[in-house]
């Protein structure tokens, strides 16, 4: 039984990833703080599980349930994340640690719990959702540090588990229209869209397609696939014409 687990599965990108993986998998575990509505929307292959990725007890319970019900997972997508901007001079150290816990330490801890069962199933794929912010963005010291940490961890872990048939990769989305980006001021939104070469915001499906590719690509590991409409090769700080 091919099983995928998506953390943050009820969020904008996560929901799209779950729906995409449900095409090929037998079960998609929609893991989130409140996964039920998203799981119902995705359909009968979706199995909701409550997960707070920053809680050790919650991670342990979800991993144990996956092992008990499915013998583990074939695909783990670490998609849960929180974005909160602050300039470094005024960045609250507690916020910094909170973003590290959710965006970096929680994903690594959950991956640790599921690596053994994945190995016993003969291999699998870990896809970490990083961010274009890993390349650096104004005001994002905490978020970019966490996502850069995820990229760094991905490279080393990919080398560590390659012989076990497990690939570890990152998808780094740029601006994707979701609830997380809905709150941006209009001025910032306009400037952001203007800096995207393809001329539109990303959609969750754009990211989901990249995740599905990496989940099935057994000869690709330790890589970062940037899904940003070309913004990472353009100038994100150029002034509008």
């Amino acid at each position, binding site marked *: 039984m091919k099983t995928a687990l998506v953390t943050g599965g009820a969020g904008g990108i996560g929901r799209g990833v779950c729906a995409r993986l449900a095409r090929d998998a037998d079960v998609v575990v929609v893991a989130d703080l409140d996964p039920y509505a998203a799981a119902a929307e995705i359909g009968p292959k979706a199995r909701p599980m409550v997960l707070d990725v920053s809680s050790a007890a919650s991670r342990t319970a979800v991993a144990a349930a996956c092992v008990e019900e499915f013998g583990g997972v074939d695909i783990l997508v670490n998609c849960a994340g929180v974005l909160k901007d602050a300039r470094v*001079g005024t960045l609250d150290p507690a916020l910094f640690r909170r973003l590290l816990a959710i965006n970096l330490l929680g994903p690594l801890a959950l991956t640790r719990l599921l690596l053994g069962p994945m190995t016993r199933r003969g291999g699998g794929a870990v896809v970490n959702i990083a961010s274009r912010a890993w390349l650096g*963005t104004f005001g994002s010291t905490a978020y970019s*540090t966490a996502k*850069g940490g995820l990229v760094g961890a991905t490279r*080393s872990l990919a080398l560590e588990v390659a012989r076990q048939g497990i690939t570890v990769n990152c998808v780094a989305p740029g601006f994707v229209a979701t609830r997380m980006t809905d709150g941006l001021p209009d001025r910032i939104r306009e400037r952001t869209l203007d800096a995207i070469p393809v001329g539109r915001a990303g959609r969750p499906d754009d990211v989901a397609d990249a995740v599905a590719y990496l989940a099935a690509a057994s000869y690709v590991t330790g890589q970062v696939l940037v899904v940003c409409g070309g913004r990472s090769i353009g100038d994100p700080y150029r002034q509008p014409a």
Partner: protein
Amino acid sequence: MTTQVTAGVHVWGGDSALVHPLSTVESAVPAACLVPDLPGDRDLEALSDELLDAEIGDVLGNVLAEVQRLLPGLTGSGRLVFLLPAEAALGRPHATSAGAVAGGILSMARTLAIELARDGIAVNTVLYADAAETAVAHQVAALLAAEGAAVTGQEIYVTAGSGLGRLRP
């Protein structure tokens, strides 16, 4: 004629092989070198929640605290240089914690370079290999020279060519 006032460089962290040559570098502007202590090798499956927190969270938190402590003294015309082992940044089996810290610092430096440019602070990262300590000190001296102000947000590998052919993070 102008007189250039030089001063020693604040060095945070690092072992003596690196700190000693760095301590001989002089700078025309307020400058600091941050050398985070990276965790040792361990399989991911051996990393408990407590170890992940200590080896990654605490190290990155300490770097942030030091950056915030230094910022007032660097504003106007300062330089911040992070130093990382290239091998940890490029990736090494059984070194997920070290890779996470190195990756986190690389991205922190990129963001700080963008953010602090308006405050006159240049931020760069030097990635080094063992036995390259003297060359590292010369590279840092170049970044701290008056002409180095235009160099920011860069990652410079001082590794005698080791790691060539590997995709950089």
